[in-house]
């Protein structure tokens, strides 16, 4: 007999207010609710502070942090496509040292969980970032961005090779006991293989999807819209790809799956939760509506109330067919 039953009035007719439990456990970390903001779309939590109270959310996934400061890619870095956004920001970030000095204290003081998105060009880079932050007191968790080109394998992304995903995951795993999420690239033949590799190497969860490789051309100027030519596609356009990925991954691994890609509304988030996600992230939608993540959270809660669903993790069991 779940909470569901327990709160039903004896006669079964008049229903008492029903309070769903929104918390979600990811590794050692308990998120207050399943909604986070995606890496690269919310900075380090400061810029949108006036517009959205982060502490109402479950988690902040920071912009990537690398060992050295990075200025990022040449401009232009953005191009809009039908229902989508191409970006080639290029991991612009202040680097580990400045991050620890300027950003970490505020992150550690947050009431919502803070997970630092980690990027690198070698396995050692990832380890150094995590070790550095751990030495500085740590944060709630880490999200490994394995979509970065690996210098040792000629620029092929870590995330496209299960063996490399396993290697980077297990190396970082040794550096921290905190929640470790591996963020999977959709630019692979079978995303279940990289998900299993992450699970086998000790990840507490996987998140999916990072951006799809895409390109747009300015026909008038006869040149690629992005200075880097290709970039990463995000936004509603990729939602079906993300939902399919989460559906497949969640049937291939036992660890939690964090779903993202094109979530604009609570209904979009519920697609991911029904498909098998344990939590979600809102990325590009924040650019259209700074309050998007909060509206998503409100809507999930309302839906759980309406359907008297006790826990977020129960939602995936409701998918029929």
């Amino acid at each position: 007999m779940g909470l569901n039953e327990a709160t039903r009035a004896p006669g079964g007719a008049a229903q008492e207010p029903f309070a769903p439990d929104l918390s979600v456990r990811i590794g050692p970390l308990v998120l207050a609710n399943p909604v986070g903001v995606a890496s690269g779309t919310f900075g380090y939590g400061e810029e949108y502070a006036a517009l959205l109270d982060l502490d109402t959310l479950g988690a902040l996934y920071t912009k990537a942090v690398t060992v050295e400061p990075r200025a990022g890619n040449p401009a232009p870095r953005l191009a809009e496509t039908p229902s989508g956004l191409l970006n080639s920001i290029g991991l612009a970030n202040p680097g580990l040292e400045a991050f620890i000095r300027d950003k970490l204290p505020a992150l550690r003081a947050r009431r919502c969980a803070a997970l630092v998105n980690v990027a690198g060009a070698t396995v050692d880079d990832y380890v150094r970032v995590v070790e550095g932050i751990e030495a500085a007191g740590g944060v709630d968790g880490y999200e490994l961005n394995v979509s970065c080109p690996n210098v040792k394998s000629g620029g092929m992304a870590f995330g496209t090779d299960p063996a490399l995903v396993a290697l980077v995951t297990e190396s970082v795993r040794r550096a921290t006991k905190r929640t470790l999420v591996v963020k999977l690239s959709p630019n692979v033949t079978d995303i279940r293989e990289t998900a299993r590799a992450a699970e086998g190497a000790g990840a507490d969860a996987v998140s999916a999807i990072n951006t799809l490789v895409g390109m747009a051309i300015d026909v008038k100027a006869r040149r690629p819209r992005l200075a880097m030519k290709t970039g990463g596609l995000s936004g509603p356009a990729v939602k079906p790809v993300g939902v399919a990925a989460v559906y497949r991954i969640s049937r291939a691994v036992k660890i939690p799956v964090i779903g993202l890609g094109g979530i604009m509304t609570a209904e979009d988030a519920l697609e991911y939760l029904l498909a098998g996600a344990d939590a979600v992230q809102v990325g590009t939608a924040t650019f259209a509506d700074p309050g998007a993540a909060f509206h998503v959270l409100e809507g999930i809660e309302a839906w759980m109330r309406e359907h008297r669903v006790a826990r977020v993790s129960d939602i995936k069991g409701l998918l029929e067919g």
Partner: protein
Amino acid sequence: MVRIDTELLSNRRVAEGYFELRFRWPAAAGAPVPGQFLTVRAREGSDPLLRRPFAFASHDGTRDEATIVIQERGSATRALATLEAGAKLDLLGPLGHGFAFPERGTEPVLVAGGIGVGPMLFLRAALDAAGVSSRFVLGARTAALVPEALLPRGAGVEVRTDDGSLGAKGTAADAVTALLPEARAALYACGPAPLMAALDRIAAERGWPYQAAVEEWMACGVGACMGCAVPLKGGGFLRACADGPVLDGSLVKWD
């Protein structure tokens, strides 16, 4: 900086493909300064997906009103151009850093290229209100693209068109070049990159300060996404939205 749903008060065509949108801007939203911008969500749904940035072209704090001047280019501006008074507007602003007033003893020269006119109109009005006289130069391709009804009244207003159909033939940069080199001008500009680059060269030669309002594709508009990178001559980038849009024009790599 606030996100508000506000009301369009009027929408009028001011030149070929140019529209002035006047809307309610409550005091609680914060008073914009010249050079600052807002972003607007042209439609619900995902086409267009991103908010679009536009510079404030005026602000009337006593009537709680403000304006932007837009040029029809693509889907968002097309949608905005057809809105009628009473329509709801989803706005976010004021964003970014505006222009600083000129130092004493320098004469502000405001240069607008094409649709760069909005923020320069606002700056002119602010200088006027502060009793600082200024020159105002507008460059356009042709007369049809000059929003005559919006042009500042008073002295020192000049129009240049590429085809000579209004004002003298030539570019706005030509008008600036024609100023006495000995003048102690302070350049302010917003316009296409070639104009901005030309003004940079003039300013460098003559040792004039140069405040430039830049344009870049934007996603967040608040400094979070690093999308609106403006390349600098010395390497590295500034964010158009949060570090700008008004930047020291001598630092920017205009190429």
